């Protein structure tokens, strides 16, 4: 059974630190996606919002917030929160509605207005919330976790600080021509080395910023797309919101501890590889079929972990793959041609949607200044707090 859906439109509000309300970014992105699709808001039967836990109540119910901003139309709605995977959940909701035949056209929107500096837990004393407690008892900020993974890679796989810097240099170069990127500035290895150590071994330029931004997609059934005059649309052929398998033995943000492997052996596939594997299986393709990938480079070092997790190379092979130039534009399988989080900074609920916007433009051959030649298939992967997988495979 074919379970593809069509991506009719993609739109973004540029990432930055604009200091305005998140609804404005989402609205701009939604309008851009609708214009790109050649549809208008009343054509949309279902709107899926990716929520933000900032910005008060409108953020928690983003689906309705965006529907109201676009003008109440009676469209069906959902609002999803899954931290960084929120966007994938919203896309997943829209896809399920379309595949079930409950609607033909859906709009997916995510936007955020992020605070300056470290992400911190939601306010108030919440001593039963692990996200609150990790700050209280350990001072375990997000960069601490990123640094733990980075140090582990150095010790186990021989990654070097130069490798981490090379990821930043590559992604900054990719983002130079992207009009939606926040940072469009060349970065050198010397720039990275000269930036302050935040959490050893990671420096400021190894760690992604927090940004404002908005992204939206107009999705439809393939039949609707063809009737609408799009004979060969970009299609979403696989989507995974997988959870981990017990025992989860890799420490994830914001955990205090992993599961114990004392009584049950760890699963064959750890969490992150399992996220991608589930999406590949749905799509009926494998990593060897990829033209490009958008991965969640919260840190430069984490991009290397993803190379292995999505099957671009064997475990321990990421450094060699990076050094070969395969993951740079012009290489065998460019990773983060958009510029990635290194060029965008993270706008949490918008990010997974933005990744699919980039895949869409790449597969249409419209990613000006950063086009992957002949792009036919791409994967976007991401991971939300507490075990939310996020992977989307697009093909054309």
């Amino acid at each position, binding site marked *: 059974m074919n379970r593809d859906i069509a991506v009719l439109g993609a739109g973004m509000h540029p990432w930055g630190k604009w200091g305005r309300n998140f609804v404005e970014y989402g609205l701009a992105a939604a309008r851009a996606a609708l214009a790109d699709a050649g549809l208008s808001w009343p054509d949309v039967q279902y709107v899926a919002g990716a929520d933000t836990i900032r910005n008060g109540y409108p953020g928690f119910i983003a689906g309705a917030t965006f529907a109201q901003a676009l003008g109440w139309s009676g469209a069906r709605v959902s609002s999803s929160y899954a931290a960084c995977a929120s966007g994938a959940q919203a896309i997943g909701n829209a896809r399920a509605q379309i595949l079930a035949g409950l609607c033909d056209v859906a709009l997916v929107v995510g936007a955020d207005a992020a605070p300056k500096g470290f992400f911190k837990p939601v306010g108030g004393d919440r001593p039963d919330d692990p996200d609150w407690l990790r700050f209280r008892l350990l001072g375990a900020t997000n960069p601490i976790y990123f640094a733990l993974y980075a*140090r582990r890679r150095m010790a186990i796989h021989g990654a070097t600080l130069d490798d981490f810097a090379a990821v930043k240099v590559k992604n900054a170069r990719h983002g130079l021509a992207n009009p939606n990127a926040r940072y469009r500035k060349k970065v050198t290895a010397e720039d990275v080395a000269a930036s302050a150590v935040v959490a050893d*071994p990671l420096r400021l330029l190894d760690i992604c910023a927090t940004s404002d931004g908005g992204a939206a997609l107009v999705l439809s059934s393939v039949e609707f797309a063809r009737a609408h005059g799009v004979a060969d649309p970009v299609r979403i052929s696989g989507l995974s919101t997988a959870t981990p398998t017990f025992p989860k033995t890799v420490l994830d943000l914001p955990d205090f501890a992993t599961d*114990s492997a*004392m009584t049950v052996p760890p699963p064959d596939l750890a969490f992150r590889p399992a996220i991608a594997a589930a999406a590949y299986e749905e799509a009926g393709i494998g990593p060897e079929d990829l033209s490009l990938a958008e991965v969640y480079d919260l840190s430069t070092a984490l991009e290397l972990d993803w190379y292995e997790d999505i099957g671009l190379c064997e475990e321990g092979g990421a450094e060699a793959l990076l050094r070969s130039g395969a993951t740079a534009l012009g290489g065998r399988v460019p990773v983060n041609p958009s510029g990635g989080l290194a060029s965008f900074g993270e706008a949490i609920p918008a990010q997974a949607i933005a990744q699919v916007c980039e895949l869409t433009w790449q597969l249409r051959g419209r990613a000006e200044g950063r086009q992957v030649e002949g792009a036919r298939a791409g994967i976007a992967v991401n991971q939300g707090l507490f075990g939310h997988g996020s992977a989307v495979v697009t093909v054309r």
Partner: protein
Amino acid sequence: MSATKERRPAVDGWFTAADGTARLLGTRCTSCGTPYFPRNELACRNPRCAGPKDGSELAEYAFSPRGRVWSYADARYKPPPPYVSPDPFVPYTVAAVELDEERLVVLGQVVPGVGVADLEVGMAVELTEGVLYADDEAEYTVWMWRPVG
């Protein structure tokens, strides 16, 4: 730091140093044997465990105090609240440690004075109790890792 200040755990029931050996406290399934930290009182989370899964299978458990460094990092900037930071901020080191016996990785701060240059992945460490922060009334303690020997 006054020696006369009362010492209180910064969190209740997560660790003990009562018998002179610091240990993490959690629970363990009496049916399948899986230990949990932080404590899990709800139901055993091993999907193949044949226990009743109503919490009655979970018993108090004190973890073994030794493990090996899985990874480590430090904090060079003051984190946001609810971390209670001295003023001026003092950098600290965090280690993820795989317990030898229970085979799980647990985060903890490393005792003051031990920095990233003193640590290595695979190094043997043991649990101890250390002061996380203090106020006028008391010193608040938490579990910490320190190199063995």
